[in-house]
């Protein structure tokens, strides 16, 4: 299905090829109408976003971190939106899971500071150059110390039992429940 739509949005192809000319290290494709996708190596993400901003992607909507423990990587998805082209674009990059480090894009999109704080809090990604990473964000200190995160290996139910001291009534035949 994606192939059909690809052909019907030549404007997207133009945007992608124009952007890739300036940033040859990235890969780009058109998903469907108004959805572009770029794959960028982690060390060039700052350059790429600078290029992207210069070529019309004014808004950074979110930085999403996705944990892929089997591959040992954390994927960072920079959700960009271009008002002038009217298209959304995802810039995907991957950092190793054990040592999740990437440089901050604060000086390109100042709002990234907030998103980076969020990703740091829940996925323990370190954004070099962001001064507010250690500032209290959503979680309380005791939760932070206890290692609450949204990574896949965080045992939420175990933590809940430990923290709130509840006995869950469904423990015995857990396999019978979807959750």
């Amino acid at each position, binding site marked *: 299905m994606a192939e059909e739509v690809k052909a019907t949005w030549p404007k997207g192809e133009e945007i992608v090829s124009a952007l890739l000319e300036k940033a040859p290290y990235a890969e780009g494709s058109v998903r469907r109408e108004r959805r572009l996708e770029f794959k960028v190596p982690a060390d060039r993400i700052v350059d790429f976003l600078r290029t992207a901003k210069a070529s019309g992607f004014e808004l950074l909507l979110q930085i999403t971190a996705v944990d892929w423990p089997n591959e040992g990587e954390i994927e960072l998805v920079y959700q960009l939106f271009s008002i002038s082209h009217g298209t959304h674009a995802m810039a995907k990059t991957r950092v190793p899971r054990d040592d999740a480090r990437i440089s901050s894009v604060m000086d390109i999109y100042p709002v990234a500071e907030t998103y980076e704080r969020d990703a740091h809090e829940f996925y323990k990604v370190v954004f070099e150059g962001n001064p507010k990473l250690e500032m209290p964000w959503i979680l309380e200190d005791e939760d932070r110390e206890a290692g609450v995160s949204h990574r896949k290996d965080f045992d939420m139910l175990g933590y809940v039992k430990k923290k709130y001291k509840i006995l869950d*009534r469904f423990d015995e035949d857990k396999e*019978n429940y979807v959750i």
Partner: protein
Amino acid sequence: MEEITFKVAPESKVKKKPSFLKPWLSLKYLFKKPVTIKIPYESIEPAEGYRGFHTLDWNKCVGCNFCGQICPARAIEMTWIEVDGKMEKRPHPKIDYGRCTFCQFCVEVCPPGALGFVESYMLTTEWNEEELQLFDWVPIHPDKFKEIQETYRDWRFPVEKIKFDKETKEVTYYLRNGEEFKFKILGYGIRPPKPPAKPTVKAEEKAQAKPEEKTQTKKPELDAESEKAD
């Protein structure tokens, strides 16, 4: 660049001029009928199909646990029940209103259509262990529920009091119209309970552990009230 066809509104339409006099025009509302619903004396009814409390046709229920699987809050627990000394062939869902979000996905997925809901939504209790029993029940038959609702027409929970005997696991529903309804909980889970005494089954009362003092102070008052109500 191009292509996006925004129809931008002219500024004159968007902007408003400040005025000293216009706010006074709203004085006309002084002579209008108030919209207030005077609640103890007047009442409004929930719309048809309002997602309220559950009902369960015990004969139709096949104990498939689809409701338990879809429940986002895991409020549903399959319960093995004995009525009049006879065990029901299949487990029935027991719903905890301390968790239920009234999304009614359970009703949607119920294959035989045994689980249903009515528009009643009101359940107010004092916060103590005995009264909070009301929040955890095996729903009653829809006809019964509707009958009680028709009698009182105030959208309240049909059960006045639930008595749960921890030793014998006997549950008594005191319905609002004075009827009593007794059954025995044999066990939880989708597998049938083993006939002899089963230590593995944990009652959910543990989850609602309370300080001793509270229940002691509450008890006499409660009994007095329940007598009054009867």
